[in-house]
């Protein structure tokens, strides 16, 4: 935790194509600056996001994750964001039980008109994750998973 000043977190953002991706495009069109740490992966809808991808991202070395889609009722596909929200509520509890640091996952909504909000979301998250430091503990959690899976096979 000593080198936190130089620590540049790796953050992956899973966003929907219709609201947040368009919102992030608007951030660009409005030339609002934000940190380079966040990289966006485009999904058709937050309802598409397989939450195993979150674990995959942590396993790959991500320090933080942002999930962002349309506001409730604004989903391009009617209800995908509601499914995502419900999935997140359940998944969050499961992760907590497993010992995954859920403070590193940010679930939010950014509409196509909220370019400035997207910049805020990114900057706030980068600051937050920087404070939390690199996510080294996940390897321990993952090792534990593997051990348990191995034990189950016996």
């Amino acid at each position, binding site marked *: 935790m000593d080198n936190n000043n130089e620590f540049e977190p790796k953050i992956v953002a899973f966003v929907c194509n219709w609201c947040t991706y368009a919102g992030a495009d608007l951030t660009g069109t409005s030339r609002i600056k934000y940190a380079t740490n966040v990289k966006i992966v485009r999904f058709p809808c937050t309802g598409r996001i397989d939450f195993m991808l979150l674990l995959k991202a942590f396993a790959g070395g991500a320090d933080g994750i942002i999930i962002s889609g349309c506001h409730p009722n*604004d989903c391009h596909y009617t209800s*995908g964001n509601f499914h995502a929200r419900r999935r997140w509520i359940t998944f969050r509890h499961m992760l907590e039980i497993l010992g995954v640091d859920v403070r590193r996952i940010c679930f939010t909504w950014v509409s196509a*008109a909220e370019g400035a909000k997207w910049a805020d979301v990114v900057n706030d998250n980068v600051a937050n994750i920087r404070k939390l430091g690199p996510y080294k503990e996940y390897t321990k959690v993952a090792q534990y998973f593997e051990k348990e899976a191995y034990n189950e096979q016996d």
Partner: protein
Amino acid sequence: MSKIGVFICHCGENISATVDCQKVAEEVGKVEGVEFATDYKYMCSDPGQNLIKQAIKEHHLTGVVVGSCSPRMHEPTFRKTCASAGLNPFMCEVANLREQCSWVHEKGESTTEKAISLVKMLVEKVKKDQPLQSIEVPITKKALVIGGGIAGIQAALDIANCGHQVILVEKEPSIGGHMSQLSETFPTLDCSQCILTPRMVEVAQHPNITLYTYAELEKVEGSIGNFDVTIRLKAKSVDFSKCTGCGTCQQKCPQKKIPSEFNAGLGTRTAIYVPFPQAVPNKPVIDKEHCNYYQKGKCKLCSKVCPVGAIEYDKPDEFIKENVGAIVVTTGFNVLNTDFFPEYGYGKYKDVINGLQFERLASASGPTLGEIRRPSDGAIPKKIVFIACCGSRDPAKGIPYCSKICCMYTAKHAMLYQHKVHDGESYIFYMDVRATGKNYEEFVRRAIEEDGVKYVRGRVARVYEKNGKLIVKGADTLLGGQPVEIEADMVVLATAGVSNPGAEQLAQKMHISYDPYYFFSEAHPKLRPVETNTAGIFLAGACQSPKDIPDTVSMASGAAAKVAALFSQKNLVREPVIAVVNRCAPPVFSTCVGCFMCETACPYHAIEREDIKDRKGNVIKTVAKVNPGLCQGCGTCVAFCRSKSIDIQGFSNEEMYSEVVSLLNS
């Protein structure tokens, strides 16, 4: 083995100013499977596209990644380029290096590094991409127009004149919208009704237009080419097939003091009413909230006097279903009331009115038959003050945008006042005069020079009543902020144009996006101004942002042209981004276990059940199957599937996982 071509665009200087494009191309060129990597100043230009085509042919590329602007902008362009060089268009991906990289970061190492990892991510995706075939679906050549103002009227007429069926839905009892309420129109001062009402009649008589007044959109399902819409026909309580429009019921109705919406509250109407004499259709409806029979259970006077027995009290709202191929949204705008302004009396001074009310006072069909008389005592005001930008351009009021029409209509109001009250004095308080249109500036100059309207540049701080006069306290900023006090007889506020109440709900019904002020969002602010992000739904008029009549009419014709272009195709070609359930060799046939979680997740009822049978016809198992015509490609089913048997083309599990892995490795 994939052979991928990578093309990095400088976008003039838009990308290259902060990203080292050459380095990006070099670095990505080292990635396994990348056959060719280069950068160029304008990749979307003709030579740029030729560069891609040539590389595809020379290097026999199996996939292409273009690092340029947002895929929402040029993905179709580059996919078409690839297709013309013989590569399957869905083997082309666009990395967003402009909107999500170069424009939002400062120049530096980390920006270039981010660009590299974004391109690498899509290289990994392209490796997993499968060639896909576009889907063709038939189009229903019938359009729905929502809103019967001038935008809806123009769009409906234009589409109908192309030979297509149009359904026009209007929530009020008559079409005409705000334009029917206006007196004269700038910059020509021709009478609004005189140019509008012939169009209204044309709509009613057009063989291709079905008009539903007093109706609202209830539900929209389906997608471009095949929308299923449900329309609520609000109970009019009058059988239009019997009613002759004689008007006897309106004369006899005992409820006579209801503020008339058409006259912006300055006149009155009855409970059974036609909004205005030139209404289309010119037949009355009963306003249930004010009708004695509906409220107190007795009266029925209209039914007694109706010579044809057209009154039907107990008829409920009706719902009709229609199948349409395209929707044009023309729901218009609203103006703020004077009660929004505490500094100008919270709407409690009767002689402080808004611009729309002044239109009614100046209109020959208005409550004063065109004479400018103040609402409180009917006297002719000798001194009148107009305050522009009431609410507009005022972030403190939550309306930072310009309402666009107020400068012009305020000049027109002052001019009309001077024409009607020769010895009157008119003052306009303004911030800036924005007269940007053909003959607009000349019009404002005419108001100042010929009609002697006095323009005062400055804000009005307060309006209060004293000895029967309205004291307007403001400042003249051209005279160094010198205080100005005017004893006026009447004050007209050019209140901001705002979105219609219910715009948010309407947008949510149709799944179109809207801005923070609930104006509907266009697909691209410059190049796709009449389309929404939802294919097949178009916008026209002030529901997109406040605009004047010429802009509204041209936008409506633009939307109509878009609809006509859509309808001119035989079949609609759709992107194959849809879900598919896997199939494999017997005895498994499919890894689908038939839990049908996907069926519960799908908002489009696109999941069907398919029986897999043996030779004797016995069902071995029932698995899910996606109807490609109904699937919209949201992918919710993919995240639901427990056995990972359903996947979405273009955003498959393999593609998404390899994107994430690549992003974290680089």
